């Protein structure tokens, strides 16, 4: 059984249909990429999965439980964390406070401290800047903070929305290395990216989204060599 199952999802903004019935699944241990151009519906899909938007039709099933109507604030407690587009760190709080916020649903204090240590080990720069206000961090550091904050909830599945956006090529590589090592450590990843090349390189499988529909899917390595994908998304 898949860890996350999205079935025939349809989402509207007012009269406009943004998602026109998509279905896909994420199995435990995988990295799944959702690629597509601007406005294809990638972010809308993630927002619907974590309850920030509600679908008109279709369902979202996480570990066998229907979470379509579960409010957004109850999702993270189920083991699914969302690193939103544009990082959305709490700019006026310190790095440390941001990370603590990530563990908001957790009660065990020693477990939170352990997670904090794990996150600091993975992102040493966050520890160096733990007392700095998050709004003054660089874009790459904010991305690391957003990821670290998501990890604080000890998620089984992490949704990442455009983690490479606005970062320098070196930082992009660093962020993708982190995604890979997170996955090796046992976290399942659903990745939304405009940078299709990087996303396909790191993913096991991928789905191609075009104006609210899935037009192609399959093994990431196969898609990478697909002529139409190459032309449309890889700039070759």
């Amino acid at each position, binding site marked *: 059984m898949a860890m996350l199952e999205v079935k025939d999802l349809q989402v509207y903004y007012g009269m406009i249909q943004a998602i026109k019935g998509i279905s896909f699944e994420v199995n435990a241990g995988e990295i799944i990429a959702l690629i597509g151009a601007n406005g294809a519906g990638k972010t809308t899909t993630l927002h619907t999965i974590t309850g*920030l938007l509600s679908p008109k039709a279709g369902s979202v099933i996480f570990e066998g439980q229907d979470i379509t109507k579960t409010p957004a604030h109850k999702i993270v*407690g189920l083991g699914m964390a969302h690193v939103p587009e544009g990082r959305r760190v*709490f700019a006026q709080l310190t790095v440390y406070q941001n990370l603590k916020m990530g563990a908001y649903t957790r009660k065990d204090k020693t477990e939170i401290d352990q997670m904090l240590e794990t996150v600091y080990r993975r992102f040493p720069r966050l520890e160096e800047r733990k007392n700095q206000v998050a*709004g003054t961090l660089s874009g790459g550091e904010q991305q690391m903070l957003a990821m670290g904050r998501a990890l604080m*909830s000890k998620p089984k599945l992490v949704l990442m929305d455009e983690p490479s956006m606005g970062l320098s090529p070196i930082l992009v590589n660093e962020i993708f290395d982190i995604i890979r090592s997170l996955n090796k450590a046992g976290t399942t990843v659903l990745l939304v990216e405009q940078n299709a090349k990087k996303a396909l390189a790191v993913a096991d499988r991928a789905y191609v989204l075009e104006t609210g529909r899935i037009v192609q899917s399959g093994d990431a390595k196969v898609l990478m060599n697909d002529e139409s994908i190459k032309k449309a998304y890889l700039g070759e």
Partner: protein
Amino acid sequence: MSFISYLVNGISLGSVYAIIALGYTMVYGIAKMLNFAHGDVIMVGGYAAFTMMMSMNTSPLVAVLVSIVVCTVLGVLIETIAYRPLLEAASSLAVLITAIGVSYFLQNIVLLTFGSSTKSFQSVVTLPNLKLAGGSLVITSTAIVTILACIVIMIALTLFINKTKPGQAMLAVSEDKGAAQLMGINVNGTIALTFAIGSGLAAIAGVLLCSAYPALTPYTGSMPGIKAFTAAVFGGIGSIPGAMVGGILMGVIEIFAKAYISTQLSDAIVFLILIIVLLVKPTGLFGKNIQEKV
């Protein structure tokens, strides 16, 4: 001697403004709306305490506690019935106008229930006044209690926001509702809690205000409400220390203007100073103006 007495009265009136301003500033910071019915919640608090003391003959302490409960429930009801359905869907203008509607609604409900005659409020503070310098300087016990209440509330609120989980949730919601939800924070619950705290504080402010200025009418809350709102803007709306400092400055300026310049012009002077401060520093004294890197 009269200078010190004016100063104490100013700080005491300012403490009331500060406690009211906290309600405005917290609700603005977290729900991003101006709750113009806040002043009338103060008035309801006054009537609740009045009813308990006069009709039920309870002790002042019980009256204050009942008043806090009544206003807390009222605040949450106003939020869930009138504002919540609009906060997500409608424009901020619709919410603002609804708030003005709620304000008139509360005034008229009280008018219907208690009539338009002025009720003479009995101070909840029954301690003797403080006489200094051989009796030439009298500080009322109500003033002392008001100032102490303001200090205690300030400390308690700061601790609550910085040390407790619901307080941290308030900080997160005030910055980014969506991201707060992703952390597992119940945004609607946090907004309701903010209204509950703000309205509970309004009850305390109402009782203290009526104790110092004992005339209670259905319109008692509106002028202090506007002044406290001004104080919140003066200090930097959204900022808790700003509301405190803004409130106390407003009270002191008002009393000094009344004493040394003109009783009739005192309100005009207060608002003139506000305009000057906002021209020089548009975000208010403690306004946040952090540039965020993108």
